[in-house]
């Protein structure tokens, strides 16, 4: 293994990132900040899944909050109403989401463009209505209380610090699996579908299988995030899983950079914390938020991570050009 190959390898960045995350609680002890970091971690998981679907495979989902919500409500209801352990709750949620995502994905992913977007939008709203109306189960708009705190294999995660480590661990595992997936035959097949679905088909890629497959995987990621959320806050209500959150998720992927896992995490981090910073401008928070989003899309349409990457390549090229010219005149 050469030094160069080490630099190029995605696992190098992953290792540094892991170390960074493990060290953060040593510097950050404030409960509030840890809370924000936990939420960033939870959002990152959903956004990574959404990026696999949208950025890599070129599909769209305007209803992903639904899977987030199903993950939260399945485990939450089982826990609050029947005392089911969080681990069992997760298993049931994952099975349930797989079935639903498979059932919804199959007909929907035959659609393209606007039609696909509308279908996923509709799905998200339908699920939201279920959360609101199945009051006997979900508690309706008032929400669901009494969700058990996270206990896994005898360990109870009842402090912000311990929950931070739990979320980090889950997120890092998912990130690692995702890195492996995108750098594989499957990852290439997904990107091929994005590049040219007809050519992918003709080269033997069963596009329907891969599209539904990645849709289910992205739904599972969202469900895991929902599970983490439910057992952290121990109270959930439909308003966390509405259309606006679905849009917010899409915004995180796009702003971060479509087709980049690091971009997904970055986008989640940025858009989760931005509202916190914007409290400075008080009443102008929403307007400022909108202006920032618009500016990013105008000046860096490929997203922030790619935009910064492109910019640094340009600057680097200019510097090396100028130094070449200087060398030329010297001689």
């Amino acid at each position: 293994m050469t030094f160069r190959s080490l630099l190029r390898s995605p696992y190098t960045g992953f290792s540094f990132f892991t170390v960074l995350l493990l060290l953060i609680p040593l510097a950050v002890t404030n409960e509030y900040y840890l809370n924000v970091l936990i939420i960033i971690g939870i959002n990152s998981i959903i956004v990574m899944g959404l990026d696999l679907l949208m950025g890599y495979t070129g599909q769209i989902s305007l209803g992903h909050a639904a899977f987030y919500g199903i993950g939260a409500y399945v485990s939450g209801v089982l826990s609050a109403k029947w005392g089911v352990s969080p681990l069992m709750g997760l298993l049931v949620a994952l099975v349930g989401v797989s079935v639903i995502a498979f059932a919804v994905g199959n007909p929907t992913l035959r659609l393209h463009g606007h039609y696909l977007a509308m279908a996923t939008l509709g799905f998200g709203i339908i699920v939201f209505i279920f959360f609101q109306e199945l009051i006997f189960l979900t508690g309706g708009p008032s929400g669901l209380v009494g969700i058990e705190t996270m206990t896994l294999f005898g360990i109870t995660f009842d402090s912000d610090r311990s929950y931070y480590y739990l979320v980090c661990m889950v997120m890092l595992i998912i990130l690692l699996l995702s890195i492996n997936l995108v750098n594989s035959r499957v990852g290439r097949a997904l990107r091929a579908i994005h590049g040219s679905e007809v050519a992918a088909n003709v080269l033997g890629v069963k596009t329907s299988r891969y599209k539904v497959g990645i849709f289910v995987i992205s739904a599972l990621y969202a469900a895991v995030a929902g599970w983490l959320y439910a057992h952290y806050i121990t109270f959930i209500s439909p308003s966390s899983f509405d259309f606006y959150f679905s849009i917010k998720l899409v915004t995180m992927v796009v702003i971060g950079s479509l087709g980049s896992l690091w971009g997904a995490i970055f986008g989640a981090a940025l858009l989760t914390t931005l509202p916190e910073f914007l409290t400075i401008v008080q009443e102008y928070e929403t307007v400022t938020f909108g202006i920032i989003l618009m500016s990013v899309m105008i000046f860096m349409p490929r997203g922030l991570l790619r935009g910064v990457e492109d910019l640094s390549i340009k600057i680097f090229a200019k510097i090396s050009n100028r130094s070449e010219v200087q060398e030329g005149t010297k001689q």
Partner: protein
Amino acid sequence: MDLGSASKIKGLSATNKIMELLLTTEKLTKDFGGVRALDNLDLEVREGLIQSVIGPNGAGKTTLFNVISGVIPATSGLVRFNGETITGLPPHRISSLGTTRTFQNLQLFSEMTVIENVMVGMHMRSAGGFLSSSFKLPWVVAEERRIRDKSMEWLEMLGLENEAEMIAGSLPFGRQRILELARALASRPRLLMLDEPAAGLNIRETQDLAGLIVRISKLDITVLLVEHDMDLVMEISDHVSVMDQGRKIAEGDPETIRNDEAVLKAYLGEE
């Protein structure tokens, strides 16, 4: 059996083969609403040869390819490959039986690198799935290595090895055409269908293409070509079929076709 002038370039290896029917269409018909794009077309493609389909614009050549490869469904009639009926099968199933095609308007994966494009060509010759890839099982790692090495070999064969890590969309057009060819070859097809591969190429590039197609044919790959470039067709084809308005109006070796009445008439209507 007279193979025409092409055999001079290719050598006589093709004449010694028993030429089996690899692909046939029987009364193949395709209607787009009121327009009949393919009209009871009977086509025979023999193994080991370079066969061309020519005809004026709108003759139905690309529609023929689209129906054979399963991209669009036939209205009626049959397509048989290697004895098996393939009409109605989805494109990926047809390809898994041993055919592949290129596209007139180039369907590269523009955002992927050159070598990655070719690696997708090897999709059917590999098996890594969602779970095995996510968990990076040892056999998948070994398979990835094999895919990469083989893809590099194809790039070297077609002179693209120096551009391996470049983004496909950044290549000049002529090189992109060659890349699409490399990608198709990586799937090791028995039948390679090329849809106007010379479109957009200059004279020198077209000459290189001709040589390339002959080399491909020597790899025991049957080539079915749709083309507008008469020089290319006449130079390398063993057999030519001529279409006009969805029907086959003539066929034979290049010399016969060149002088055929019906063919000249069909072409006189256009420039």
